[in-house]
């Protein structure tokens, strides 16, 4: 508080009418529970008309102080190593009632939008404005590499397919063994009738294709020979 008072006194001596702006960073959990943890390089920049620019480093009490602001429309940006802050528009205008003091007003502003597009109102004051600004997000500098993860690895469809087939290869004989005989017979019949398996299956026919017989005009003579190819055991 003392700081501000002294600055107002100083400002009063140097300039007849001048506006002051104090922006403080409150504790804003969960993003920034302790504003004292902000790096000392945290600073605020007020950009006015060409050539007018003020810079204020962060103070011990987590504030930025701008004394002696001339009448203009300013863009206030807070730069911090670890956090993003929303940009503000600060207008310093002559007071409506014609007094010596100037009116300071602040709004949020949006980049990439016309300057007249104002956001939420941050307050106004006569000759002096104290307002608060909260960080909008934390800076995340690092890109994590998609490292090796055993769960992701197992989840991938290729691996799932492979695992299922492995399960079949190893599991099938045991299932067959543990089936009751009726079921087993039924299953064998089903396999025989299947288009690919059994002695009359397409696979067996292809494998045991008798080219000489075929050339000799013989019909389906593959019945004899390998009777139980399709059988698993």
């Amino acid at each position, binding site marked *: 508080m*003392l*700081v501000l*008072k*002294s*600055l107002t*006194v*100083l400002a009063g001596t*140097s300039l007849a009418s001048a506006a002051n702006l104090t922006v403080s960073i409150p504790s804003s959990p969960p993003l920034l529970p302790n504003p004292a943890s902000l*790096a*000392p*390089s945290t*600073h605020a*920049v007020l*950009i006015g*008309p*060409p*050539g007018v*620019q003020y*810079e*204020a*480093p*962060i*103070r*011990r009490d987590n504030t930025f102080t701008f004394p002696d602001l001339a009448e203009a*429309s300013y*863009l206030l*940006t807070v*730069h911090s*190593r670890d956090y993003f802050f929303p*940009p503000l528009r600060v207008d310093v205008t002559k007071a409506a009632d014609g007094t010596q003091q100037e009116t300071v007003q602040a709004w949020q*502003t*949006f*980049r*990439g*939008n*016309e*300057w*007249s*597009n104002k956001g939420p109102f941050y307050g106004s004051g006569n000759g002096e404005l104290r307002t608060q600004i909260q960080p909008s997000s934390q*800076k*995340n*500098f*690092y*890109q*994590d*590499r998609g*490292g*090796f993860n055993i769960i992701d690895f197992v989840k991938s469809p290729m691996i799932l397919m492979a695992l299922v087939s492995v399960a079949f290869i190893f599991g099938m004989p045991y299932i067959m063994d543990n089936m009751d005989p009726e079921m087993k017979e039924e299953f064998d019949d089903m396999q025989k009738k299947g288009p690919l398996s059994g002695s009359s299956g397409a696979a067996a026919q292809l494998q045991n294709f008798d080219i000489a017989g075929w050339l000799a005009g013989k019909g389906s003579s593959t019945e004899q020979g*390998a009777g*139980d190819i399709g059988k698993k055991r």
Partner: protein
Amino acid sequence: MLLPLLPAATLLLAPACAVFSDEAWNVDYHFALLGAPKEETSFFHRPNPSSKASLIYTLSEEHALGAVNPRDGSLVWRQLLASGGDSHNTSFLRAGEGQDVVISGIGSEVAAWSAADGRLVWNVHTDGPLEDVEILELSDGKETVGAKDAVALSGGEHPMVQRIDGASGAVKWQYSIDGSDAPYQLSASSTEVFAILIHKTILGYVKLRVVALDPVTGLKTDEYMLSSENELATADNIISVGANSASPIIAWTDAAHTTLKVNVVGTKSISSFSIEKHDENAIERVKLHAPYHINSLAHFLVHYETATSHWAEVYHIDLKNSKVEKAYSLPRVAGRGAFSTSTADANVYFTRVTRDELSTVSSASHGLLGRWSLSSFGVAGGVGEVIEPVHAVSEVSVKGDTVSAIRTTVLLSTGDWVLLRDGKAIWTRPEMLASTVAVTFAMPADMVTLAQQLEVEAHGNPVAAYIHRVQRHITDLQKLPSFLVLMPKKIVQGFLGTSADDAAGSDIFGFRQIIACATRSGRLVALDAGHPDRTLWNRDVTDLKPGQSWRPSLSSTKDGVIQVSSVAGTGVDYNATDGQQLAGDLPVIPDEPDLSTSRAVRYTMRGNSLEATYDWSPSWTFTPTHGERILNLVPRPVDDPVASIGKVLGDRRVLYKYLDSNIALLATAHDASSKANFYVLNTISGAILYSNTHPNIDLTAPIPTIMSENWFAYSFTSEASPDTTKGHHLVIGELFESLLPDHRGAMGASSNYSVLHTPASDPFTLTQTYQLPEPISRLAVTRTRQGITSRQLLAVLPASNALVGIPYGVVDPRRPVGRDATKDEQAEGLMRYAPVLELDPKWYLNHQREVVGIKEVVTAPALIESTSLVFAYGLDVFGTRLSPSFSFDVLGRDFNKFQMLATVAALAVATFVVTPLVMRKQVDQRWRFL
């Protein structure tokens, strides 16, 4: 409220080219520097009066105020103080005994900073430039408890003394100094504040006028003139005014350094001592070292220096009758030396640092309390150079009659700042790099020999080449034993994940290039980009007089050689590996500055117009319109390889780039209407290929420009009007032969042409503007060997203290506006245009660190195509490696060796397990069939 979502949308796009968490801190390096510390603004101080640990505070020549941890030399905090464009380089830093603030004074601003974390406590602006700042070490009952007040002396038109409240920064009183005398210094005793002014006599000599003020009321109590007779010719002969000691002193010598006059401020008597000559050389400098604490003994040391040696004398002041007496002298030692004063309670100790010895004496007697021999300071110097101390600051703790611990920071003649603990170098800070003015990359010579030999084999006749090759292999065989010895270590290293580029010795990727930095003080410092923590060599290359500046330009004309040339002088070559001078002497010739030089076209500024000469005859002149001034000219880099002449679209058609090695981007400013104009020029014919005007520009803000390949970029800060936006903008433009795919425009059919003879075929230019959250002060672009890798735009953000790498795809001017990207455009990586370019923190090459004061960024290609080396300098030095298209030709850190080995092992196990099963099954089947 949809509007804030737009930037969020851009952030989601393109995760390309980010800093990976496993590469950060490994491939990049950073020296957080302060600049050369100044003797009078460096000290040990306890940031917290209750704790015993102290930090080293300094305000450097680069106006950086910082605290350094004496344990490891790391920076605790730092503030770059604005010098306010001062002409005289004076700055002050004071800390009161037992205070938790340090008070700086620079330009016309006095500021108090929290000593522990570097935050501002208060600041006060004075009317005139500051001449001195002191802390009032007295208790008059009126000051706020805990905080000691400061007194400031300011000059200018109305010189005055102000007392500033230590807690709030309020001015308690001010005293205007009358008369035309120039304020010189402040001095405070326990009862009075003295303002010392320089009074010029009619004869041209100077006299000292002392004004004594009451510290409580600020009223003048006394004023007198010291009768310095005619010996004080200039203010330069005044040695020092002691501050805050029990009896402040002022001393001066005559121009020839034959007598020393000492006056205890507050009295009128002057003690005179004749200076003995110790050798044939004239005394060049006399320095005074006095304790800075009010309750310490009134002893001081006078340090004499000649070109070849130095010695010192210790004087005591008798407080009762203000008499100054010589107590003892310290012997003459060859070379330069540094003295520092430290106090413990009332005792005063002087520490002396010479080339090879560190010793401490008490101010009361000349007996040595401690003595350590210094074998080396642990820093790299030039060939045959003797490293000498320039100045020192010490912290001494004495038990009984011996020094139990001593910490001394020494600034060396090489520019390194070293901490010696009990005579051993604990850490060094390469502060000379903070004043780097020019940088080049150079390949080490041993790398080059292989390339040269391969060259010989490639161009010789087959038989000779074969013999050469066999011979080369035979010589290589000599390295086999050492290679075999190193082999197990290498395998273990590879296994533990220490990647290939860390292995010492070999550098097949070209990451370990030598970075040569020319500093403002005329030294050339070489760093190894692969092992940046140590300086390869550091040598003096010019003979600069104090105050003289040089504008060196560095280049690596051929591999292994660094050429230094100063403005128009001829170059001097140095061996890149060890810094040996190869040939030539470097003359420092001040000359008309060349704006830029590229092959045969030379540009000269004549008045306000730019003149281009080609083969020494004027080719064209660019004269801006009335009231317009040229800001800068950026030609396309001479070495700017481009692999593809076209851009492949999503549907496999091609847009042809307008590639001309003779194009440059010229920026001009029109101050009256605050407009900035940008022109793309053909540097041979002078034709304007493209131009653009931006109104409402802040011309005091930086306007960086860059030109590469077939595109250019620039940035500026614009002023608001109700229907436009205010802030910082980045404009990017790309030149094409034609905007129709698969069409080469007017020049399509001709195989060669001349811009001077055929009518110019103007390129088709696409531009796009993006709004940035913060200003850019410098633009650069990555460079790779063949130009196959996509380029990345590097931008220095001074507000965030960052160096950001913007992928070109994000700022591509071909991003579709007002509609979503089509399938083909998506295939190309283009996304819908958004006016705001939020700079993703993942693009920050410096990531968590703060890179302060970057003025210039240089890039160089590595030996492998994917990688570009980046080196940024200014105040801090930062370097990294970038792979804008990811590391496609080298196994990066994403390659998991363990995973690969585990996979191989798992497969092997699986094979062993499955083999008997398969065998049995096959055998079973055989039996069944037969």
